[in-house]
């Protein structure tokens, strides 16, 4: 990993500034392939120097969106603005974007340095400058001693670095990364994620990354757009996406979550204002403190992350609301965490995670134990969509 960590990262939130001009704007973009709608009337703003992720399952249109920005596909409807200029019809070789391909797409007949120099040679830069830039890039991705090798003589991780260096060599205004770390093993991927963030920070470029790996998106991005079937379901910071998903889809896609369907019994405030909601989920009484989204009588989902559910052998102080009794049905021991699957008295299976703070091989709670699950009113969330 990087020896020097560089300056401490600052808070970066241009999207909250109403005066900020978006760097990239997708404006009512629709893309159809025959009858299939890959991207459906999508509008999205991305700001300069942002590390932005498009996250979604395969086939959700995220790659198509990126390919439209690179110029490999033209939108069927709508337009793409880069720094306020419409770039429709501009061929890929004239766009100030560079892409790092999922397959890396390294030129097999060229050495590492030739691969990195390729884009610079297209710009007809003087030879000396190309050489300096290539050396710079090789240093950036720590591949100086592999300059003369062919891609086939490199490991997967090294190839991935060459691909990154090649796409960065031209100092693109926007770097597009298509599932860049998919082929790497977990440890290397984690390391590379932090390196990517460092590089993005050092060079001050705008990164747009396409991924289906939610952990990757959470780690690297300033903001994430969660996509489903050609539309954007939610655009927010990783923390907002995780802690305040706007729908069952986002809640379920990002991380682990308990989703319980129920009805709103009462609300203490008008819609849109902070208050306390009382829910009845088939007998399970739940109270949630949040902005009231729905009026009484509406069917909603109560969502709570496993790590916010407390599990105990003792009866909690309050048992009439936000608490349920059950039997430990299964345990997933993950090392840092243990995940308990608890079958409640009313037949549901709820998940509760507990950090393993002490070094005990035999945990106090084990299979078949009668336990209480309970949580505070601000731990869960009511979802209407």
């Amino acid at each position, binding site marked *: 990993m990087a020896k020097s960590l560089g300056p401490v990262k600052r808070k970066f939130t241009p999207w909250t500034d109403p005066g900020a001009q978006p760097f990239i704007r997708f404006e009512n973009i629709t893309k159809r392939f025959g009858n299939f709608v890959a991207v459906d009337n999508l509008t999205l703003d991305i700001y300069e120097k942002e590390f932005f992720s498009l996250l979604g399952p395969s086939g959700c249109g995220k790659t198509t969106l990126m390919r439209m920005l*690179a*110029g*490999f596909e033209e939108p069927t409807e709508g337009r793409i603005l880069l720094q306020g200029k419409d770039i429709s019809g501009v*061929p*890929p*070789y*004239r766009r100030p*974007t*560079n*892409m790092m*391909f999922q*397959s890396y*797409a*390294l*030129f*097999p*007949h060229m050495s590492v340095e030739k691969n990195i120099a*390729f*884009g610079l040679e*297209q*710009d007809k830069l003087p030879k000396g400058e190309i050489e300096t830039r290539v050396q710079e890039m090789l240093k950036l991705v720590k591949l100086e001693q592999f300059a003369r090798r*062919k891609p*086939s003589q490199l490991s997967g991780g090294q190839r991935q670095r060459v691909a990154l260096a*090649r*796409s960065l060599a*031209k100092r693109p205004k926007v770097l597009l990364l298509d599932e860049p770390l998919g082929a790497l093993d977990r440890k290397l991927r984690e390391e590379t994620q932090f390196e990517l963030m460092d590089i993005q920070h050092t060079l001050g470029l705008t990164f747009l990354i396409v991924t289906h790996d939610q952990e990757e998106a959470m780690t690297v991005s300033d903001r994430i757009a969660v996509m489903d079937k050609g539309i954007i379901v939610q655009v927010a910071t990783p923390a907002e996406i995780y802690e305040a998903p706007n729908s069952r889809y986002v809640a379920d896609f990002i991380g682990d979550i308990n989703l319980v369907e129920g009805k709103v019994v009462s609300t203490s405030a008008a819609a849109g204002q902070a208050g306390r909601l009382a829910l009845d989920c088939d007998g399970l009484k739940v109270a949630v403190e949040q902005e009231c989204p729905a009026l009484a009588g509406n069917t909603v989902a109560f969502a709570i992350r496993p790590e916010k559910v407390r599990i105990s052998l003792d009866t909690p102080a309050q048992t009439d609301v936000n608490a349920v009794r059950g039997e430990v049905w299964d345990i997933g021991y993950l090392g840092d965490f243990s995940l308990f699957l608890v079958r409640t008295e009313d037949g549901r299976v709820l998940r509760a995670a507990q950090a393993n703070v002490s070094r005990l091989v035999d945990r106090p709670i084990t299979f078949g134990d009668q336990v209480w699950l309970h949580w505070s009113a601000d731990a869960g969330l009511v979802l209407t969509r």
Partner: protein
Amino acid sequence: MSQASATSPGKARWLVVAVPYVWLILFFLMPFVIIVKISLSDTAISMPPYTPVFQGFSTLRDFISQLDFDNYLFLTEDPLYSEAYLSSLRVAVVSTLLLLLVGYPMALCMARANHGIRPTLVMLVILPFWTSFLIRVYAWIGILKPEGLLTLLLQSLHLYGPDEQVQIFRTQTAVYIGIVYSYLPFMVLPLYSALEKLDGTLLEAANDLGCPPWKAFWKITFPLSLPGVIAGSMICFIPITGEFVIPDLLGGAQTLMIGKTLWTEFFGNRDWPLASAVAVILLIVLVIPIVIFQNQQRKAEGGKA
């Protein structure tokens, strides 16, 4: 069981390796040795038309003393032979270039076509093989001869007057047409197989890095298809050099090719030793491109590993 399976695959492997070698020794090496021996003998007007020089081990010394390089010396003395060799090589080089020029765009279009129609396109390239090669060359006579189909077509289109005729038959042009037509599948198929393997994202990457498509062809597509170019060129160049049928049927008096010379020496002049010498030299001339070809193949395989 493990013992049995340890020995029997060994034997089977030996057999698999031996069969082609036995085949090559019987049907390639032995005939070649015989040809070399004949080429070192003297002409005799008899049946067979050469002196049988080897009649037992006692006469081995006589046999060796009777062998000489007279036939090879004669080949260097008469300029007819060197001209025939050079002219054959020229025809082979020009034909191979023409084949590349015609075959490369075809192979490229095939490789870029929809996956669904690619097998059909490959079939269409192979289709001419279902008719005899000789019949197809004869068909070209019917097309190219002065009163042939081409003349009729041009006359009916009023591009040619009623008494004008196409003067292609029995010229060098007719030979080139025949060769390019006959060898095209051998050029297209190796090119297609090289181009088909090409990863399309490489071209996208080149585009993305600021390289327009036409330039990307020369920087990416063509260099990566070189193994196919070399394979196709060698597969065509080698047999074209020794080609006999096409120049004999379509060529005229000015068509001088070594295959024809060989045939004349063998059947016309009944000079088997000289004809054998011509054949041996031809083989040596062709071994050079074969060695280059194999070197290239080895390099290509080494690059992948």
